C-alpha cells in the first residue's frame, strides 16, 4: 500500500509538470488582454507601459520558468516563513495577480474559507441527501419512491445551476424574503445570531449546488447498492437471522460504499475549485468566482495558478480515491 502510494506520487510529478506547461501555454494562448478593462480614454502608449510593468511583454517561456520557480519555491518558502518566522523566501517576488497586484496565494487564502464552507456544505448536504435516496431506491427497486428518485436525479442532471439558482433567489429571497441574496464574506460566527445569519446566507447556494450534487451521487449509490443486494453474502446475513436493517445498512451498505466513497472523493476537487456560476450568482466570492473573474479580466497569473492548483487537486484526489479504495476494500492490496 505504501509503495503503491509512493509510486503513484512519483509518477504524479512528471504528469503535473507536463500539465503545468500545457496549462500555462493554453492560458497564455487564450484571447483577451489584461488591458481590456482599462477605459478607452487611456491612450495606447500608457497601455503599453502598463503591460510592461506587469511583465506581460516577456516571452512566454521566460514567464513559465519564473512562474514555476515562484510556484514551487518562493510560495512554499513564503508560507513557511509566515509560520516559523524564518526567511527562506528572502523577499523574492511572489506570483502577483495582474488585476489586483496582490499575491495570488494571498487572494486564494482569503477565498478558500468561504468556498470550503459554502461549496463544502453543499457537497456534504448533497451527499447526505443522496445516500438515503440511493439506498432506499435500490432497496425498493422500481417502487414509486425509486421512480421519483430517478426523476429527481434526472432533473438534477438536466437543470443548469444558473437556472435553478435564479429560481431559488426569486422564491426564497425576493418573494419570501427569508435569505439574503448577497453572501457576506466578512461575517464571523461568534454567537447564536451570527450563526443563524451564516446559515441563512448559506441556505440558497447550498440548495442550488446540493441538488446537482445529490442527483449524481444518488445514482451511483443506487446502482452500487443494486450490485450488492444480489450478492451471496447478503443471503448469508439473512440466514444468520439478522434484521433487514442490519442486513441492508451494515452488510450491503458497507460494500456499496466502497465505489461511492471513491466517487465522492473524486468530486472533492470541485469543492476547492468552487462552483463558478453559483458563487457568482450568490456573491460568495470564493475560488470559483475568482477564477471566472480572472478569466474575464485576463489575469493570466491568477488563471494559471488556479488552474494548476485545480489540476494538482484532481491528480491528488485520483490518488486518494485509489488509496481509499484499497483501505475500504480489504481484498485490494496494491503491491
Amino acid at each position, binding site marked *: 500500500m505504501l509503495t503503491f502510494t509512493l509510486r503513484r506520487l512519483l509518477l504524479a510529478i512528471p504528469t503535473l509538470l507536463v500539465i503545468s506547461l500545457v496549462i500555462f501555454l493554453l492560458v497564455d494562448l*487564450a484571447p483577451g488582454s489584461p488591458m481590456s478593462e482599462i477605459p478607452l480614454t487611456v491612450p495606447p502608449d500608457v497601455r503599453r507601459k502598463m503591460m510592461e510593468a506587469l511583465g506581460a511583454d516577456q516571452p512566454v517561456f521566460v514567464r513559465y520558468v519564473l512562474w514555476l520557480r515562484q510556484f514551487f519555491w518562493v510560495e512554499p518558502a513564503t508560507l513557511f516563513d509566515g509560520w516559523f518566522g524564518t526567511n527562506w523566501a528572502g523577499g523574492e517576488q511572489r506570483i502577483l495577480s495582474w488585476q489586483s497586484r496582490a499575491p495570488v496565494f494571498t487572494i486564494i487564502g482569503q477565498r478558500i474559507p468561504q468556498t470550503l464552507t459554502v461549496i463544502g456544505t453543499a457537497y456534504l448536504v448533497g451527499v447526505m441527501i443522496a445516500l438515503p435516496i440511493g439506498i432506499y431506491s435500490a432497496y425498493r427497486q422500481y417502487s414509486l419512491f425509486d421512480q421519483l428518485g430517478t426523476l429527481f436525479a434526472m432533473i438534477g442532471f438536466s437543470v443548469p445551476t444558473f437556472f435553478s439558482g435564479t429560481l431559488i433567489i426569486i422564491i426564497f429571497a425576493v418573494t419570501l424574503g427569508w435569505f439574503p441574496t448577497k453572501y457576506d464574506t466578512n461575517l464571523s460566527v461568534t454567537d447564536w445570531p451570527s450563526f443563524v445569519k451564516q446559515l441563512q446566507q448559506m441556505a440558497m447556494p447550498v440548495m442550488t449546488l446540493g441538488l446537482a450534487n445529490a442527483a449524481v451521487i444518488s445514482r451511483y449509490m443506487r446502482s452500487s447498492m443494486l450490485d450488492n443486494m444480489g450478492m451471496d453474502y447478503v443471503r448469508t446475513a439473512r440466514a444468520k437471522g439478522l434484521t433487514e436493517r442490519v442486513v441492508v445498512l451494515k452488510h450491503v451498505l458497507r460494500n456499496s460504499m466502497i465505489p461511492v466513497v471513491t466517487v465522492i472523493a473524486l468530486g472533492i476537487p470541485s469543492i476547492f475549485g468552487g462552483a463558478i456560476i453559483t458563487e457568482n450568482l450568490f456573491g460568495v466570492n470564493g475560488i470559483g468566482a475568482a477564477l471566472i473573474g480572472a478569466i474575464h479580466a485576463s489575469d493570466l497569473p491568477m488563471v494559471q495558478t488556479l488552474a494548476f492548483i485545480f*489540476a494538482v487537486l484532481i491528480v491528488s484526489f485520483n490518488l486518494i480515491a485509489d488509496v481509499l479504495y484499497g483501505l475500504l476494500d480489504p481484498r485490494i492490496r496494491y503491491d
Partner: protein
Amino acid sequence: MIEVITAIPKPESALRAIWHQFRSHKGAVFGLVVLSLLIIAVVIGPYLWHPEKLTVVEALKSKNKGPSLRFPLGTDQLGRDMLQRMIAAGKVSLAVGFVAMMIAIIFGTLIGVLAGYYRRLDGPLMRLTDMFLALPLVPLLLVIMMLFRDRAASILGPELGAFTLIVFAIGITSWMQAARIVRGEVLALKEREYVLAARSIGSASRRIITRHILPNVVSPVMVAATLGIAEAIITESVLSFLGLGFPPDFPTWGRLLFDGLSYMQVYPERVIWPGLAISLTVLSVNYIGDGLRDALDPRIRGR
C-alpha cells in the same frame, strides 16, 4: 432437412425483438415520444408555424407578451415570436447536443478501447485523459474557438463553421469520462473467455475489438452518451454567453435561457420555455438510454 432450413427465422426478428423489449420500458417509450415530438417540432415546425414578419415598430408594440393565440409562447423583449425562436433554437441545440455527444463518445470510446486493449498504450493514454480532466475547460475552449473560428467560418460559412467548431470543441473537451468507463469495461472484457476464444481462432485484434469488445461496451457508453447530450447543450449555452458560440442572431435553447434570465422575474415564461425544452430533452434522452441499454442486451431482452 430442406424444410428445416426454410423454417429458420430470419434475422430481422432481432430488430423486432429489440423494439419489443424497448417498448416494455415505460420511461423509454415516454422519452421516445417526447424526443420525437421535439425533433418533429423543430424539423417541420418552421413549415407549419411562420408568423407574419413584423416591422420593428410593430414587433416592439407586442413585446414581452404572454402566451396568446397569436403568440402561443409569447414574445421576447423585441417582440419576436418565442415559438418561432424556440423552434429555430431547438434545431441548433438538438443538433449540437447530438453531434457533440457523438464526437465525444466516438473519441472517448476509441481512446478507452485502445488504452484498455493494448497494454502498452494504457499508460500514455490514461495520462492524456488525466491531463484533459485536469485542464481548465474554459480557456481550452477559448483557445480552440479563437484559433479556428475564422478559418472555419471562411471554409464553411459563418453558421456551419460555427456549428462545426462548436461541436468539435465540445466534443474534444468532454470525451474523458467515456474513455475511462470504456477502458475499465475493456479491461474486464479482455479477460472474458469469448475474447480468448476469438484469439484461439486467430482473429486479428481489430476484429476482436469490433466484434467482441465494442458491442459489449454499448451499455456504459449509452449512459455516458445520454449524460453527454445534456452537457453539450448546456456547454453550448455557456459558450454563446462568452461570445464564442453561434452568431448573436442565431438562437439556441441555451442562449434563450441565458437571455431570459434577466427577465425571469417579470416574464418567467421567458426562461420556462427553453428550460423546459432542455430539461425535457435531457430527461427523454436519459430514459431512452435506459431503455436502449436493456433492449440492446440480448440477455435482458430474452427474459
